[in-house]
């Protein structure tokens, strides 16, 4: 098992190794765009087909919590970027601190998400678990509302899964950073996890308006 920072056997030199790692992460993020893209497409098409019900269902999710989460996540991207910077200027302690901050903010996000999910569970807005949106309304309305919530849970759930994976990566990074592994010469894992984290943030920046903000009057 190679220590991080050393040359892996298949590479000729560290430059090639770094370039490969970076390109690899970018290519991976492209696949993630396509992965989320399919669901975004489905949501958009359905939203344009059932504007009133989707609007109603959208208004029933907590805008305040969603906005809070948006601020939390954008801030976490800032702290993540700061940790990358800290590595580049060799401030090893700052790297660890900023990584810890990012992890805390990420956990806050997941906690708030948990509260939102709990609210939805209590209101019977979880498809498949005694779903009932508007008991008096027509079958069609309830069906279309269920469609909204199915997509809501699928999209935010997939996003949350990516956040959890990100949190795991951050824990590993914090461990390594604590041992002083990252500096001007070597900060590839921080750079790559940073890229990943920013991507997850960008997905949320699309999710938030689509799910929470449209038709909010």
């Amino acid at each position, binding site marked *: 098992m190679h220590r991080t920072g050393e040359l892996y056997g298949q590479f000729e030199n560290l430059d090639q190794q770094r370039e490969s790692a970076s390109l690899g992460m970018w290519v991976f993020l492209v696949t993630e765009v396509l992965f989320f893209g399919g669901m975004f497409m489905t949501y958009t098409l359905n939203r344009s*087909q059932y504007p*009133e019900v989707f609007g109603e269902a959208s208004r029933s999710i907590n805008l305040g919590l969603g906005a809070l989460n948006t601020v939390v996540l954008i801030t976490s991207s800032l702290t993540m970027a700061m940790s990358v910077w800290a590595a580049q200027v060799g401030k090893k302690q700052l790297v660890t601190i900023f990584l810890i901050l990012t992890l805390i903010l990420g956990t806050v996000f997941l906690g708030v998400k948990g509260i939102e999910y709990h609210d939805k569970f209590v209101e019977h807005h979880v498809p498949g678990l005694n779903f009932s949106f508007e008991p008096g309304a*027509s*079958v*069609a309305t309830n*069906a279309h509302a269920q469609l909204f919530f199915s997509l809501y849970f699928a999209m935010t759930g997939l996003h949350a899964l990516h956040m959890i994976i990100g949190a795991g990566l951050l824990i590993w990074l914090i461990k390594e950073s604590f041992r002083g592994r990252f500096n001007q010469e070597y900060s590839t894992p921080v750079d790559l996890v940073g890229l990943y984290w920013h991507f997850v943030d960008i997905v949320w920046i699309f999710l938030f308006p689509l799910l929470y903000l449209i038709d909010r009057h």
Partner: protein
Amino acid sequence: MQSQLPLYPEQASNFAPSVDALMVYITAICLFFAVAVTIAVVYFFFKYKRKTPGEIGVPIHGDMRLETVWLVVPLLLALTMFAGGAVIYVDYRRPPLDTLDIYVIGKQWMWKLQQPTGLREINELHVPVGRNVKLIMASEDVIHDFSIPDFRVKMDVVPGHYNTMWFRPTKTGRYHFFCSQYCGTNHALMGGWVTVMEPSDYSAWLSGSSAADANPVVAGGKLFVEKACSTCHLPDGKGRAPSLNGVYQGHVQLADGSTITADDAYLRESILAPNAKIVAGFQPLMPTFQGQLTEEDILALTAYIKSLQSQPVPATGAGVVQAGKK
């Protein structure tokens, strides 16, 4: 069937001759290239067979002119193939206005067909020769496909959608139809026969058979009242909803300024998703009937509304529903 080993089905519709002609055209072009390349390959294979163990070939890296030729020529030929197919397809997707309309419902694993008079058939379709026939099709469950090889036509039948197809039979006889979209266990058994008859025979058959089944127009009229459509859609156009007299195939101006033609799909959509297109001058008040009507009900209502063609058009009334066939 014609010969012992047929290579193509009978030509029994207006589309068949052009489809077959296009087939011959494309086959000829493809055959030319296939033979040319095969001959070249085989010829080179023999002519340039290695003579001594160490022999190498002549290094020719490429030729821009040749590359251009065999890029441009196939492209142009491909465009002609595209054009030939496009012409037939556009004609096929635009049914003429004077059609004999047959309502078709596909379900696992049978076809229910209904003649304009209400006469129903199962897995059988009787049509008169020389007449434009339009099939308006719905599915009760999964995706099916109604295909008549001897007519060279088929169309998917998708739940939640109306699909229409048309043809003009040109030869009397009995022709196979099949379900052509895999739909479960008995997909292969979901076929039947189209019987094309002389017009006089067709009329005789139509009236002679036990027409105990309700005329869809009558059934639709009953539903129109039962479901309270008549309370808003007043014939004089002064109610909360546009008059439906003469609406079918007319132009409808919508609230967003656009104009559309009121075809079968529009009638269906107006029943199931009324707020998708609001008629100019009216409010979005109509509730959706999704989940409250079966496919047969919707077809009956559609048939009834189409029958209102012949009703007088209101002199006044907002909604700008214009009578007329274009």
